[in-house]
């Protein structure tokens, strides 16, 4: 139960921080009314999706859903882990909330629309980003919740806690949360989701895991070790290649 709450909390935190950056930009430039109405409407739509999907999923036998969700979780987790490794090794740029905020702010200023009352541009922009990031959170909650009986509630609680933390911080600082170590979080979440996904896919295939449920811990440690090695090797490869390119150019 503990790892489920932690994984849901950390993964949702990353998504909510990304949504907050855009909602803040919308609020600052176009007015808070539209930003809050757009985000609120998207939140209601997401809750409706959970209310519809939750009971349906709970009726499907656990072993059937575990394999499907395990494959999706594996794809999702490994994609995050790969991206976090590439960022940590300097191959792709780090996610910069302050930069994204500035770009969104500039783009929103250029759009026409009423500044007084409810601004349609603000409502649509806030709705869209909350919906897009929120769908990822819904997937994470459902995927982690599908891993075993009674896990949907801890997964939901983890996501809810992340939402409360981000809303509280956003309301307090009124700036993008650029000091949140997003790449480190993505690295950690990528490892957790990949480990859970691998375990459930193995269970779905009927494979044997040494130590049964305890092997998840081994999968987490193994993924972390390989990811750290991958960062070092990728950094060295890039440096060697960059050195060769510079020498050839001169």
């Amino acid at each position, binding site marked *: 139960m503990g790892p489920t709450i932690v994984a849901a909390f950390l993964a949702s935190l990353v998504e909510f921080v990304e949504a907050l950056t855009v909602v803040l930009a919308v609020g600052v430039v176009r007015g808070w009314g539209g930003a809050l109405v757009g985000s609120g409407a998207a939140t209601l739509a997401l809750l409706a999706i959970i209310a519809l999907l939750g009971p349906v999923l709970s009726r499907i036998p656990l072993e059937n859903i575990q394999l499907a969700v395990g494959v999706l979780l594996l794809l999702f987790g*490994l994609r995050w882990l*790969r991206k976090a490794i590439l960022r940590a090794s300097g191959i792709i740029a780090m996610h910069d909330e302050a930069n994204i905020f500035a770009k969104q702010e500039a783009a929103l200023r250029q759009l026409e629309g009423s500044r007084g009352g409810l601004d349609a541009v603000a409502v649509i922009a806030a709705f869209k980003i909350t919906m*897009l990031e929120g*769908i990822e959170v819904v997937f994470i909650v459902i995927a982690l919740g599908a891993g075993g009986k009674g896990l949907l509630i801890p997964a939901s609680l983890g996501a809810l806690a992340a939402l409360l933390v981000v809303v509280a911080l956003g309301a307090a600082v009124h700036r993008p949360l650029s000091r949140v170590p997003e790449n480190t979080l993505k690295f950690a979440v990528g490892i957790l989701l990949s480990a859970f996904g691998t375990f459930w896919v193995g269970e779905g295939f009927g494979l044997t895991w040494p130590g049964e449920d305890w092997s998840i811990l081994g999968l987490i440690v193994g*993924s972390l070790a390989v990811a750290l090695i991958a960062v070092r090797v990728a950094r060295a490869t890039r440096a060697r290649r*960059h050195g060769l390119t510079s020498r050839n150019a001169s």
Partner: protein
Amino acid sequence: MNGLKTIFAELLGLFVEDGSFAVAIFVWLGLVWFVVPRVPLPRVVQGPLLFAGLLAILLESVLRAARRPR
């Protein structure tokens, strides 16, 4: 229509960023699913074998990205 396309692209983007990385994962999962029950492997290595292949795919994909020109 554009809205639907955006939602579909975003949903797909949740799971697939690098096409060959995603394909390699699917191929490995398919191989394990098909081969492992048909080969007399010790039961204790079945799960770790799945895991090792996934880590190898991750490592290869990262190294391929590192070798790509900037």
